[in-house]
């Protein structure tokens, strides 16, 4: 019983932490975008206003039970991946479910939400939503390949499928995997561009073509849950990258610095990019990133 209580507290604290950091990152990315475009931009806490406003909307509509459940699916993905990914090196409070899942479980749970969300978007009956979903799923098929290749390379190199073990290896040897397995890191970072869906890979939302795609019928509280799950999920993914490639973090400041540096890669790449077409995006991921993934596997297998 006490264990479950501790898990619950750990989960709640992790969630709150991820929520605040994630939302702040979104605000910061808006500032960075604004500065690049020679604007002043909104304050860093702008997204808190947005989220709270969406939360306090008086009305919201849904098109049926799947649409109603879609954001909850999304939230499950975000929270589950947050619970499985270790937030700090060692320490018992943020352990959560770290030792119960492994990388393959993580890969699959990470598509649980988008797929559930896609079902919700499908039920709206809005053609834009369905088009956005088909684009999004196609893109998932694209970037999952280099991403899985990078992970498989790590797995076979270090003979483990557990994130905690990978972190321990880095702690013991003192070398970050991003330097010992550079190809895997490059492949994973390129896959991250697709994962975060900033330009040029923002084909799912694409406000100018698709009217924000799968989200086009979501307003009010649904959009609130979507936005906060997006923030939590973004934080979880960044933490995962920090954990398996950059040696994890011992305290909050190091974690924030490392994740922010990583987060700036897709943001900065996105600011200066136009948008791909879907097949261009898919082909991009099957091109160079997959090659790097292959190199990573070769390195892991023969070096």
């Amino acid at each position, binding site marked *: 019983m006490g264990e479950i209580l501790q898990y619950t507290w750990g989960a709640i604290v992790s969630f709150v932490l991820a929520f605040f950091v994630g939302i702040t990152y979104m605000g910061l990315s808006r500032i960075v975008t604004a500065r690049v475009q020679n604007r002043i931009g909104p304050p860093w806490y702008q997204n808190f206003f947005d989220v709270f406003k969406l939360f306090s909307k*008086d*009305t919201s*509509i*849904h*098109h*049926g039970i*799947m649409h*109603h459940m879609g*954001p*909850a699916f999304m*939230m*499950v993905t975000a929270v*589950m991946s947050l619970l499985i990914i270790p937030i700090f090196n060692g320490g018992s409070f943020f352990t959560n*479910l770290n030792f*119960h*899942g*492994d990388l*393959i*479980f993580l890969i*699959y749970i990470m598509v*649980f939400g988008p*797929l559930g969300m*896609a*079902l919700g978007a*499908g*039920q*709206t*009956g*809005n*053609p*834009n939503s*369905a088009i956005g*979903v*088909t*684009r999004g*799923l*196609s893109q*998932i*098929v*694209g970037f*999952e*390949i280099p991403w899985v*290749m990078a992970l*498989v*390379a790590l*797995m*076979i190199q270090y003979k483990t*499928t*557990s994130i905690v*073990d990978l972190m321990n290896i880095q702690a013991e040897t003192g070398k970050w995997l991003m330097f010992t397995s550079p190809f895997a890191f490059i492949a994973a970072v390129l896959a991250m561009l697709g994962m975060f869906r900033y330009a040029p890979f923002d084909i799912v939302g694409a406000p100018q073509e698709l*009217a924000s795609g799968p989200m086009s*019928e979501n307003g009010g*509280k649904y959009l609130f*849950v979507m936005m906060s799950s997006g923030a939590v999920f973004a934080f979880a993914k960044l933490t995962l990258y920090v954990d398996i490639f950059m040696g994890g973090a011992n305290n909050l400041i190091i974690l924030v610095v490392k994740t922010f540096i990583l987060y700036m890669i897709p943001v900065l790449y996105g600011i200066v990019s136009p948008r791909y077409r*879907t*097949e261009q995006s*898919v082909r991009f991921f*099957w091109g160079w990133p997959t090659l790097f993934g292959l190199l990573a*596997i070769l390195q892991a*297998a023969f070096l």
Partner: protein
Amino acid sequence: MNMIFILFAVLLGGALLTFFSNKVSGLLRDIFFLLTVLAAGVFFYLFIKKGDTVSFSLAGLNLQWGLNAFGWYFSLIVLGLSTLAAFYALAYMRGKERLGYFYFNFLVSILSMLGILMSRDLVSFFVFWEIMTWSSYFIVIYNGKNVQRNGINYIIFSTIGAYAMLTAIVLVYTNTDSLIISDMITSYPQFTPVLQIFVPILFLMAFSVKAAMMPLHVWAPDAYSNSPMAYSSVFSGALSKMGIYGMIIVFVTMISYLPDSTWFKEIFAWLGAITAIMGTLWAVSQDDARKLLAYSSIAQLGYIITGVAIGTELAMLSALFLAVLHGLFKGALFMAVGAIERQTGTVNFTEVTGLIRKMPWTFIASLLAIIALAGIPPLGGFVGKWMLYESLINSNHYILVIAIFFASTAAFLYCYKFLFGFFLGQEEKEWEHVKEAPALMVVPMMILAIGTVVLGTFPGIILKPADIAMQSLGYAPTEGHLWSMSVLFNEWGDQVLLKPLVYAIAGIFLFFLILLTVKGWKTMRYVTTKDISSSGEVPLEDENLTFSINFFQPFMRAAGPVMKKRMITYYREFGKAIDILFDFTRRIYNGNGQTYAIYVMIFLVILLLLKNNLFG
């Protein structure tokens, strides 16, 4: 009288009774049909023990029937799925013609599958195999439409497989003088090297036709999609597993004894992976739900073949687990398609939309089955996929795991297409009258779907018999170090504790769902799917804005180059080449007496010329 004889007598007698009572009364026929299936199931599990054997002599051949743990494991799929499909068939086939014919072949194919599982000698194995082929062929052509196109492919490929198997049997018999399978296995290491390679290849050819492996899969899409859906679930769920059954036996008992068997296994593993990839890609491009499921079956069988070919403990375990799981979810999906076909009259994604509120139970069953198919965690599919990946990674098949992963990721596309095409999208006036399918159809598919849910948390239920089955093939026991009731291990000792993960998923989902629902109950409102924000335009009642044509066009464009040519075109070209060859031979044997006389003359002249060289 041995119990095994009685089982076959019950099935055959039931089949005949069903067939003839059709003339008397429809109700009587239905009762006989159901009773036979139930009686066979009850009889099988109550009276036939693992290890029972019976030997007898027929027309000078020593035959042997019996049941071992491995056959028992596959009988779970056959009998479980057939029983549910039988209940389903009663409702699905109501009002159709020639039901006696259909039910008779249905029962005979159950009989033949059980016969295959219980044959201990090659002759009865072959005979039951042929009975299975023919009974399923008769059901494929039941609909009567396109018999020429769909049935003929199936029967041609099956015949090729049967000839291969017959050749192998003759080869084995001439070398060992025995038709008992265990004799063949024990004497296999003493075969000549050429025979050691050819016998398994010939057997595998026969089995991979049934398992729809890549170059021999051509018949499958048409055959699966054209038989009545009540049978398709058995066809794809259980009957194709007979190929897997044979393959496992061949791989475990023969290939492993080859002096250098790695390359053989690699080739088959890659063939399985390519089958998975191509099946998935073709499934994505289908607009007909039955075709989609058929291609998806091919792809899923590809995973199983890969697992079988790798052959490590974990891989074999995953193959056996996936075999059962594929029976569960594909059975449920074919049944769901049948329900939709019955209620709406069409199975085309571009025609039917928005059935979710009309057929909620069918939707739930398909949703669960689809999640299991996609391998998303809380459900059973994840367990099978996880074991397959881990076994591939543990056994150093790095590129193969990527290939399999690609196939299973691309499977999300057709999974979504299936659910979206039928159930989501705009609710149309055209389908307003559609009602939920009768309970007799809904309950079987719900049972199958719930089976996938249970297996997601407690895979041990099915891994335990699988383990016993593997032990009967000579594997070491795996319980405790590769799996326990709800924990999975890989060979490096990493583990996935399913229970806390699944409970956490369910808990978080319910928490946020309740939060979302309760917090905003008063401020939320349901609006129809016509009330969408499409540039301020109001779609009219008869206007359908659902996007369903060319659904994954961008993806197909990206994946285009591999899909330019279908396998069948190669066969057609092959057929044309054969035609030309025969044309040429016909020119030689042109039926003209004078020509033949010239041939004889030429032959004699050559003989004379060669006389000195040959006889001198």
